[in-house]
């Protein structure tokens, strides 16, 4: 039954692709799209038989009908206000159902910073150079689908030697009033010696219909550039996300990713792949996931050491409540050339919900010998002795639990470069926690 329906979505997609090939695009893009669509057609939607989707069943998601084009729906100013991070002064960029809204964005006329819809960036030199260069090398069928069908998204370029004075806050709002399947494509390029902070919030407007967002972002961090990148997943139950973030780092660059998911969005699958493409590169991936009710959150990360003398550090924390499920899959590759690599990965889980589940797979694949790689993984719950200790000191049980979760998340939150974002995340963790 399900196969039948998803087949129909599949057929619908095929028709859409064949029906509206935009003609104003450069010829090379047409070719990329065609190849991508062939890849998607040959793979179809992934099933749980595929190793990467073992715990993640997308069939119910793709087994229903969607519109593919966003129609202008009434955006409530309050939604944007609610998504603002208290106390954070930032350049704001708003994407409504994936479409860039110039009228709501404030990242304009900033020296050294270009922000525009991706459809206007086709002629840029770095678009030609980097677009689909990295993400499409993976075998994620949703990337192929996105490449073939995207009509919206964001392009950001931070110019050479530019150090942005304020972070860029991108707010992705789901507003749609009918079931919608969006294909959002982003490309962020950090030029040499550039420094920036990008914070992305994913929110849903109250009253929005069922939406499935396939967001593919490609990031290039060029020589000596530094980028701090935050994901704050704050969508509500109608929203479903498939995100694929592909980062390519050049020599002496630094990339930090902070991936935070809170109770709300029913289905979240994040693929975060970092390729350390040259020597002396540093990457940090941090994650804190708090889930509730029947949420399903899956974080798949790849840290790919291609060259010697690089360092990577990854730490993911999951807290599952109610009947929610958290999946973590962390892969570290150390290629044959990548001698003198230091790679660390840790995943800690607090399984609190009576019927919640945690599936984790910390994976190392090492082809070089002069390396130091380690990973650790734990699954546990509230420590009764710690709870007793706190309660014996007159702290209520509810408060004690909040404190313990706070402490659990601290390893990760304390690494946040931006203290305002950190305070905001800590507040959201506390808010999302059901205690007592």
């Amino acid at each position: 039954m399900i196969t039948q329906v998803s087949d129909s979505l599949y057929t619908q997609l095929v028709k859409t692709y064949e029906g509206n090939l935009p003609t104003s695009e450069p010829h090379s893009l047409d070719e990329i799209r065609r190849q991508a669509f062939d890849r998607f057609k040959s793979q179809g939607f992934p099933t749980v038989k595929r190793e990467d989707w073992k715990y993640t069943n997308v069939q119910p998601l793709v087994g229903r009908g969607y519109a593919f084009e966003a129609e202008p729906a009434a955006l409530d100013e309050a939604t944007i206000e609610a998504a603002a991070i208290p106390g954070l002064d930032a350049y704001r960029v708003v994407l409504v159902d994936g479409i860039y809204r110039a009228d709501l964005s404030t990242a304009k006329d900033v020296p050294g910073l270009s922000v525009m819809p991706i459809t206007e960036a086709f002629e840029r030199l770095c678009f030609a150079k980097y677009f689909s260069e990295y993400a499409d090398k993976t075998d994620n069928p949703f990337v192929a689908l996105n490449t073939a069908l995207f009509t919206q998204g964001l392009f950001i370029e931070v110019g050479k030697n530019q150090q942005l004075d304020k972070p860029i806050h991108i707010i992705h709002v789901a507003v749609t009033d009918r079931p919608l399947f969006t294909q959002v494509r982003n490309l962020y390029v950090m030029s040499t010696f550039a420094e920036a902070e990008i914070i992305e919030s994913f929110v849903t407007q109250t009253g929005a219909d069922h939406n499935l967002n396939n967001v593919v972002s490609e990031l290039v961090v060029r020589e000596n550039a530094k980028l701090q990148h935050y994901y704050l997943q704050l969508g509500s139950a109608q929203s479903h996300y498939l995100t694929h973030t592909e980062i390519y780092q050049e020599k002496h660059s630094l990339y930090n990713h902070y991936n935070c998911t809170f109770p709300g969005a029913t289905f979240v699958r994040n693929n975060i792949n970092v390729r350390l493409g040259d020597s002396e590169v540093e990457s940090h991936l941090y994650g804190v996931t708090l889930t509730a009710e029947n949420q399903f959150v899956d974080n798949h990360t790849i840290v790919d050491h291609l060259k010697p003398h690089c360092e990577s550090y990854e730490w993911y924390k999951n807290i599952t409540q109610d009947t929610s499920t958290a999946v973590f899959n962390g892969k570290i590759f150390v290629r044959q050339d990548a001698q003198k690599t230091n790679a660390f990965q840790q995943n800690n889980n607090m399984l609190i919900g009576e019927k919640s589940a945690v599936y984790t797979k910390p994976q190392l694949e090492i082809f070089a010998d002069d390396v130091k790689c380690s990973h650790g993984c734990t699954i546990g719950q509230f420590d009764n002795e710690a709870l007793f200790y706190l309660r014996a000191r007159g702290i209520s049980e509810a408060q004690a639990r909040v404190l313990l979760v706070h402490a659990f998340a601290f390893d990760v939150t304390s690494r946040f470069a931006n203290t305002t974002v950190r305070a905001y995340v800590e507040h959201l963790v506390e808010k999302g926690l059901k205690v007592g």
Partner: protein
Amino acid sequence: MSTKDDELLRELALEEYKYGFTTDIEMDIAPKGLTEDTVRLISAKKNEPEWLLEWRLKALRHFFKMEMPAWQNFEHPEVDFQDISYYAAPKAKPKLNSLDEVDPELLSTFEKLGIPLDEQKVLAGVVAVDAVFDSVSVKTTFREKLKEQGVIFCSFGEAVQEHPELVKQYLGTVVPQTDNIYAALNSAVFSDGSFVYIPKGVRCPMELSTYFRINAENTGQFERTLIIADEGAYVSYLEGCTAPMRDENQLHAAVVELVALKDAEIKYSTVQNWYPGDKDGKGGIYNFVTKRGLCKGDNSKISWTQVETGSAITWKYPGVILKGDHSVGEFYSVALTRNRQLADTGTKMVHLGKNTRSKIVSKGISAGVSHNSYRGLVKIGPGAENARNFTQCDSLLIGDRCGAHTFPYIESRNKTATLEHEATTSKIGEDQLFYLTQRGIDPEKAVGLIVNGYAKEVLNQLPMEFAVEAQKLLAISLEGSVG
């Protein structure tokens, strides 16, 4: 430095496989190919009852329907199942009553292997041995003494004849025919193996041991081991394997099933030294084995210890299903690969009962251009209150062309369960080497020392006789690996 490395690596590659002799014995070999008739032939040769033949045929039908999996971390070699002979046995002779009647060629083979088949030697070693030569169990020592205690230790074929009710009750209950393609194949064509039954409350007075040897060309070895420890029983079982050097690959697809009832304990140790192929990866054994234990009763315990140095490809995951409350599963493994060897091995711990505990210690060592993977599953079912798991898997890399990989699957569906997993990958510390060489120990010995220390936690789990052999095996395999 690097020239020395190269030299030593070359030496290492040439380190000979000392068990690579063949034995000329008149063999009874079934024609190549696999059909229902093959299965009928095997069954008839073994004079098996009708139900077992049916059971085999059912497995064969499953086998024909199954597809080769693709998830493993090596390229699965093309195995032509029709190009293998599924039965090879020393020419049928009247039933043997004493060792004198065993073919002297065979005895000398076992002597070369260092198996104390000779009863006197056995007395010295206090080990009861069942030797499986190609597909047939040749000789089981110490039968009488074990019988006094009610312990049944015999070849699988005999067990089918003499204790059909036990075989029928437990066969296939831990590893179902449909478990995987090689388990299905084994279920259809298994020819012999060992059978152990320890009655209620008996502590088996000696270590039980089986030696497996593939001798004939173009045959696969498909033995089946079934060990049952009744309530309160204890047994320690050892398994060793060797094969002659041949240019073509040979298939070894065994199934081992362990059943521990209430308060019972089974300790299963393996020293696997099948022929690994030559330095270019030519020949060698494909060791595709399904091993699983079931802690059926409360307070039962199953412990796997393995030292894997042989085989061109090792692909196995000895696991424990912790069904009984308070049951314990353990897995200790050292896997050493060199030249072009491939290993994808690890364990499965499935926690179903309350207060179940499991511990996994896996040490991988890769040298040359080999690849060594740890793949493990720890699964906590919703009913496994207070389940506890600890996993440690370390990898040691020797040389810059080899690979070490870790694929742990950790799944928890119970909020009272506590799981820990840690893994490290590194090479032999230069400071450690320096420390030892500075004290006059040559680099080769120093590496041996370090590796033995690294693997000690696992080697300590082996029974005495095996621990010594395993240590030697590691040292031989490592000779000249680092300068």
